[in-house]
């Protein structure tokens, strides 16, 4: 399903925080996880993930660290920070309220 661009604004950060909170992962893994967890509803443009990751890192919500030494592929693995967890909790709460409100509104309009 294709979503309205306006509707998705500001949600990507929450997707990423929620995915990284579950387990530390690198970029490629993150995209796959996101797709898997959302049952294919959300699919990121893979390259556009990185500017968002760097933004979250700059905010201190996630922390990236290079893993893998000689002979292995070096990969930058992202983990959620305590600050990121707090942010995720706050956003989850807001989302729950938003979804509840929207469900009530849309439910009311379809019942009419």
């Amino acid at each position: 399903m294709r979503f309205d661009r306006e509707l998705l604004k500001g949600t990507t950060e929450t997707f990423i925080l929620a995915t990284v909170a579950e387990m530390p992962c690198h970029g490629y893994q993150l995209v796959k996880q996101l797709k898997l967890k959302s049952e294919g509803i959300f699919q990121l443009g893979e390259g556009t993930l990185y500017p968002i990751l760097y933004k979250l890192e700059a905010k201190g919500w996630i922390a990236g660290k290079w893993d893998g030494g000689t002979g292995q592929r070096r990969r930058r693995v992202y983990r959620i920070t305590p600050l990121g967890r707090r942010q995720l909790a706050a956003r989850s709460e807001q989302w729950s309220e938003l979804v509840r409100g929207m469900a009530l509104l849309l439910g009311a309009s379809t019942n009419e």
Partner: protein
Amino acid sequence: MNKHPKIEHSIATILTNCGLPMDRRTEVADELRDHLSQLVDAKCAEGMDEDQAIQTALAEFGSLAAIRRQLRKQQSVLDRRHVMADLRRYVWPLVAGCGIIALLVAIFAPAPASVSLRCLFGAIISVGVCGIMITYGVSAELLVYRLQRPRPRSEFHFQKSFCFWGAVVFGFFIFMASMSPLAIIVCGFFGQYAFLHSSPYVAPQLQAEAHWFLLRCLPTAMMDNPLRSFLLPLLTVLAGATAIALYERSRCVDEDEVADTFITE
């Protein structure tokens, strides 16, 4: 890790003019390369041949220009934050310094000024000094920050750099000029003038200089001496901007070094 020319070319396209500092570019290049390689491996595992896999992987990766745009935007936010964070460190010492100046002026400025008038002079002068220091601080911070981050030579545009530094040097001149009567109200001209003429602690020579500068510099010198008021600042701006732009160019990294980092044919 295998470096495929098409992948390397795409990474180079993303990172050209993306605004990231050189050390950061290498890291980002490694990360993007790893992602694309995994995508290609996955496509190959699905049964595609290498060329087709790369083509599909690049298509799924998204618009290279859009990624570059986002990286650039992100970096510019970080740059601004970095400069502002550095400047914030100067604020309290500045405020403290200005407070001390105000106090000293209030205590030591001699008669005929009354105590309340001296306090007022002190406050005005300290605000002026604070403004001056902040302006110098911002200019110096920008200068150091920009020169500390070398860019690839191919991304250096002399005209752009010259215009940027020309504007900075010109801004400096305007700022210097603002210490004259043009910015009487803003800079607390009355306070400075009264202080300079009432205090015996200020050397007579300095008083004379300040007097000339404050009263005559802009309004009269422009008529009296066009060379000093127009040509000299203009030449200084041109020379200053050229020198800094050339210096910035000398800080850029050679093409070969960039090619080694991003493109391996």
